[in-house]
């Protein structure tokens, strides 16, 4: 049987192939924070506390646009709604742990270690469940360190990069790479098309609620075009 240490190491190894995709994203998050006018401390605390790139960039964009805090918080929560889905999916595998484990493990929940951990818990056989939280912890800590380090690089660069390079264009480019795997069937494509269209049309709405309006419309459109009903969804 694998020891905790070995499982922890396997968790680290499982996320290594994803780090080259995360590091540039983190650099952009740091650069953008400085570009938006945040102090070095605020930029680092943003990455440290939120630890979720897409929502951090959406937040920075809204701060730059002069949105009010309530709308910024609503947008961040909408962008991060997917964590509730991951939380539900991982919950059965963390129930034997106390809060001393559950609270920090929840904090480390991001797309990448969700994907590798749930794969191991569900399809890794009996071995996959032994010390499962150590596997998740190994991946989560590695991702967290990568995110903070790359943000710090971006923050440092942000103070030295000349303006006029249109570096803000890197933000939608990163989102594109995140969008592609989400388009897995017709209903998801409809959700994306609706979300993009409504967000564009609603961009002139007062209070900068375009992203929230687009996201909620897209979710509704996806559900309506989903051929599965609640009765046969498990078949």
């Amino acid at each position: 049987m694998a020891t905790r240490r070995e499982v922890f190491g396997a968790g680290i190894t499982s996320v290594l192939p994803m780090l080259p995709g995360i590091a540039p994203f983190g650099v952009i998050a740091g650069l953008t924070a400085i570009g938006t006018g945040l102090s070095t401390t605020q930029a680092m605390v943003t990455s440290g506390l939120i630890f979720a790139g897409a929502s951090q960039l959406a937040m920075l964009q809204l701060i730059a646009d002069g949105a009010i805090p309530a709308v910024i918080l609503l947008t961040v929560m909408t962008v991060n709604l997917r964590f509730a889905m991951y939380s539900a999916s991982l919950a059965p595998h963390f129930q034997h742990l106390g809060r001393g484990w559950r609270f920090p493990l929840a904090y480390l929940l991001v797309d990448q270690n969700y994907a590798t951990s749930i794969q191991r818990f569900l399809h890794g056989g009996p071995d996959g469940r032994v010390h499962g939280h150590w596997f998740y912890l190994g991946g989560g800590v590695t991702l967290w360190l990568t995110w903070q380090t790359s943000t710090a690089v971006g923050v440092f660069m942000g103070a030295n990069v000349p303006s006029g390079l249109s570096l803000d264009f890197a933000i939608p480019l990163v989102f594109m790479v995140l969008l592609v795997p989400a388009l897995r069937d017709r209903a998801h494509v409809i959700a994306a098309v609706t979300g993009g269209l409504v967000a564009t049309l609603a961009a002139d709405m007062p209070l900068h609620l375009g992203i929230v309006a687009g996201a909620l419309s897209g979710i509704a459109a996806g559900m309506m075009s989903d051929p599965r009903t609640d009765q046969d969804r498990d078949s």
Partner: protein
Amino acid sequence: MSETALWLTILGAGFGTWLLRLSFIETWQWLSVPPRLDRALRYVPAAVMAALVVPALVRPESVVDLSPDNLRLLAGIVAALVAWLTRNVLLTLAVGMGVLWALQGLG
């Protein structure tokens, strides 16, 4: 935004995000996930990412612009192809920024 409001926004966003992550891990024993919510959450990534990408490309100057003068739209289309084919963040960034800079240089 005042310095205090900015700090409260950052702290609130961090705490709120943690609550979303903790939600069902903490409540699982006495609260099952409603099936409709479960279905709705599946569409969050596609809807949210598209809502972030599309406006940035089609209305870069706060007006919808589908003409070839919209360099960000042109560069974005090329980058979208790269993202679709490779799913590689670095390559998509390099091609997208490269095309945008080239177009700006020509213009």
